[in-house]
C-alpha cells in the first residue's frame, strides 16, 4: 500500500502549490514533506512512527493525519449507522413481504423499488431529494452536518442501493427456504404462519443476507463519496478520495489502516454471527 501510493503518477508538492509555482519551490516543499528521501528510508520512518502512534502530518491540512481522520469519524459513523439501520429494517421487511406475498402487487412493487434502488445513481437521487424536500417543500435542510434532520436525506440516499440489494436477496433466500419441505411440514403441523416465516424461514435465509450486509457496512463507511459530496457531509469517504487526488499520502495511509481494521473486525463478526444463526456452520 505504501509503495502503491508512491508509484502513483503525480507530485504532492505540485498539488499543494498554485499552478504557477517554480520548480525550485516544488523541490523545496517536497524536501520538507520528506519525499526526497529514498523510498526505503521513507518506509522505515513511516513504520517507526506508526508504532509510536504517529501517522504523520497531512500534506494538505498541515495537521496530524490522525487528527484529520478522526475528526471525520463522527460524521462518517452517524451516516453509516443510519444507512445501515435503514438497509436492515427496510430491505429485510420488503424482502419478506415480497417473498410471502409472491406474485401479488406487493411483490411487484417491491421489485420495482429494488430496480430503482439498484440503478438510480446516488447523485441523481441525492439532488432530487434535496430539490423536493429541501427546496420545494422546505421540510428538511438541503445540506450540512448539524442536527438529526440533516442526516435524513443523506442516509436515505446512501441506503438506496444496499436496501434494494438486501430486499432482493432476502426475497430470493426466503423463497428458497419457504419452498422446502420442512417449512411445509411446519405449516402442516399447525405452526402459526408468523412463526413459520419469522422464526424458521427467516433464520435460515439469513446467511447470505448477513454476508452482504456485513460487506455493505464497509462500503457505507468508506464508499459514501458521492453522497458525502452531494450533501456536503464531512465524512471519511470524500476525505480519502480527495487525499488520493491530492497525493496526501499520510491521510490515505491513516484511513486505509483504519478501514482495513474495521473491515477485518466486521467480517469476523459476521463469521461469528453465522455460527450463532446456523449452528451447523463450524470452523473445523
Amino acid at each position, binding site marked *: 500500500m505504501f509503495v502503491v501510493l508512491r508509484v502513483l503518477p503525480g507530485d504532492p508538492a505540485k498539488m499543494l502549490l498554485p499552478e504557477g509555482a*517554480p520548480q525550485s519551490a516544488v523541490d523545496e516543499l517536497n524536501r520538507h514533506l520528506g519525499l526526497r528521501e529514498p523510498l526505503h528510508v521513507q518506509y522505515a520512518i513511516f513504520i517507526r512512527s506508526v508504532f509510536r502512534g504517529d501517522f504523520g502530518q497531512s500534506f494538505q491540512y498541515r495537521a496530524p493525519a490522525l487528527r484529520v481522520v478522526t475528526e471525520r469519524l463522527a460524521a462518517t459513523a452517524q451516516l453509516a449507522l443510519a444507512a445501515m439501520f435503514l438497509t436492515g429494517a427496510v430491505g429485510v421487511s420488503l424482502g419478506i413481504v415480497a417473498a410471502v406475498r409472491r406474485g401479488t402487487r406487493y411483490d411487484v412493487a417491491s421489485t420495482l423499488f429494488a430496480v430503482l434502488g439498484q440503478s438510480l445513481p446516488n447523485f441523481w437521487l441525492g439532488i432530487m431529494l434535496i430539490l423536493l424536500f429541501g427546496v420545494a417543500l422546505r421540510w428538511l435542510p438541503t445540506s450540512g452536518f448539524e442536527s438529526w434532520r440533516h442526516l435524513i436525506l443523506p442516509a436515505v440516499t446512501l441506503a438506496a442501493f444496499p436496501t434494494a440489494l438486501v430486499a432482493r436477496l432476502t426475497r430470493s433466500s426466503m423463497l428458497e427456504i419457504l419452498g422446502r419441505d420442512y417449512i411445509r411440514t411446519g405449516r402442516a403441523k399447525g405452526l402459526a404462519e408468523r412463526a413459520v416465516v419469522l422464526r424458521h424461514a427467516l433464520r435460515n435465509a439469513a446467511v447470505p443476507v448477513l454476508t452482504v450486509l456485513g460487506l455493505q457496512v464497509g462500503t457505507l463507511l468508506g464508499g459514501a463519496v458521492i453522497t458525502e459530496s452531494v450533501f456536503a457531509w464531512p465524512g471519511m469517504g470524500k476525505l480519502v478520495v480527495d487525499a488520493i487526488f*491530492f497525493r496526501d499520502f499520510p491521510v490515505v495511509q491513516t484511513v486505509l489502516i483504519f478501514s482495513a481494521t474495521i473491515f477485518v473486525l466486521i467480517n469476523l463478526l459476521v463469521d461469528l454471527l453465522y455460527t450463532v444463526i446456523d449452528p451447523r456452520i463450524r470452523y473445523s
Partner: protein
Amino acid sequence: MRRRSAASHSVGRRRFLTLSAAGLVAAGLPRAARAQGKRSGELVAGLSERMLTLDPANHYSISSTSVHRHMFDPLVDVTNDSKFVPALAESWRAVNNTTWRFTLRKGVTFHDGTPFNADSALFTLRRVKDNTKLIKSFVYQDIESVEKDGDYSVVVTSNRPFGSLPAHLTMLGMLPPHAAKNEEAFFQKPIGTGPFRFTSWTHGDHIVLAANPTYWKPGVPRVEKVTFRFIPELSTRAAGLRAGEIHVVDRVTPDLVETLKSSRGVKVFDVPAVEAQRWIFQLAKEPVKDQRLRQAISLAIDRNVIIKDLLLGYGRPVDSPVPPGLIGHTSLPAKPYDPERARQILKQAGYTNVSIDFVLMKDLYPKQLEITQAVAAMLGEVGIKVNIKNLEIATAREHRSAGTYDMFFSGWAHMPHDPDWYFGQWFTRAGSEKLTRYNNPRVEQLIAEGRVPDPKVRQAKYEELERILWDEEPEIWPYYSVAIYGVSDRVRNFEPRRDYYVLLSDVAIV
C-alpha cells in the same frame, strides 16, 4: 512614485460601473444602506472550495482567502477595479526600484488587545519569506530584508525590482508576533485585526465568525455573525440558496443562472473576472511547435459560438492576454474565425492527418469538457483530429511536466491583480521549463524590465510583450471568465468581486 489614498476607492468604484451592468445593481445600493450603520443579523455564505487551513500564508485557495480576509487585514486592499487602497498600511511608496516603504495605520489592535505595529508586519513578512514550508513562501523569495523604521513604518528591500509587492500583499493577512510562540496552537484559534473574530471551525463543513465590535473601520462590519459553509457541489450550494438557508453562493455556472433567477428571493450578480482561460501548447513538441499550425488551430476556433452558445454570454471576448483593469492590459485586434484560411495554412504547410492530444484537468474549470468537445468538432472541420484526455488533476499535471500533450486546458486568475506572476511563470525559460517550454529572450527581457514599481514603465513593457505573444500564439486565450454569484434578496450592498472573493464585511441583511 505611487501613492494611493482612500479616496481612490470610490472613484474606482464609479469607473467600474461602466464595466458591468450587474455591478450597477450591486454598487448602487451601498450609500443609502451605509448611512444607517447599525449592526444586526447573520449572514451565511456557501463557498465552493473547502478551507484547509487558517494560516493566511499557507495556501493559495480563493475560498480560503475570502474567509481569511474577514479575520485578518492585509497591509493593502484591492478594489474590484484592481486599484490598490490602504488597509493596515496607510500609504506606501517605492523609494527606488528595489525598496518599498510602508507607513502603517495607528491605533489598530488585534482581537486579543495586542497593538498592531511595525513588529507585526515585520514578523508576518519575515515569516513568509524565511519559512519555506509555507505555500506562499516562494513568491517572497526576492525579498532581501524587512526592517522597521520607527513603530509605524516598514522598509522592504529586494534583490531585484519587485513592483508587484503591494499586489501580493493584498493576499497576506497580518499576524501578531506572539503567534510565533506556538504556531500550531495559534492557527487553531487565530487572532487578527479583521472585522470578524474567529468563533469555531467544523473541519470540512463550516466556520463561524463573530463581529469585531472594535474594528478600526467605522460602521464595519454590518452583521453580528458570518458563517461560511463549504459546499463544493454546485447543485447543493444553489439548493441551499433557493431554500433560504444560505444568503450568498459563489461560482454559479451559466446554465444555472435562469433557474436561480426564476427562484423566489434569489438574485444573480455577474461581473467579468480577472481570469483568462488559456489553452496552452507544448512548444517543444511536434507538430504544435510550428507557429503555422497554432495559427491554423486558432483560426479554426469559433470563439463566438463558445461564448454565446455554450457560456450563454457569460464569457468575454479576449483582446489581450491580460484581462481589462489590470496593469498591462491593452486592446489588441480580435482573433478572427476563418476555417477556410485555416485549411489553406494547413495545406501550404503540408499538414495532413494531424492528430493532437488535448489534456484537461478533471472538473477544474466550469464547462471545460463541453467546450473542449465543441473545439474538437471545430478542429475536426479543418481536418485536425483532437483526442480529448480528461484526466485526474495530478496525472494531467504530470503529463504537462513531462511534455506529453499538445494542448492543455488551463486558466489563470490574476489573484494579486497583477500580471507579473503570470508572465514570469509562463513566458520565461526557467518558469515554463516544466510547463510549455516557452523560450523567447526578448520577452524574457521585457518581463524583467516590467518588474519595476513605476506603472508607466510597466505598462509600456507589457504592451510590447503582449503584442509579441499575440502574434506567436504560444497559447490560445478563448475567453475571459465571468464570475457569477447567487444572492438572497435580503442581502444589501453585495459586491460581486472580479477575483471570486466573497467579502461580507460591508454587507448587511434585512
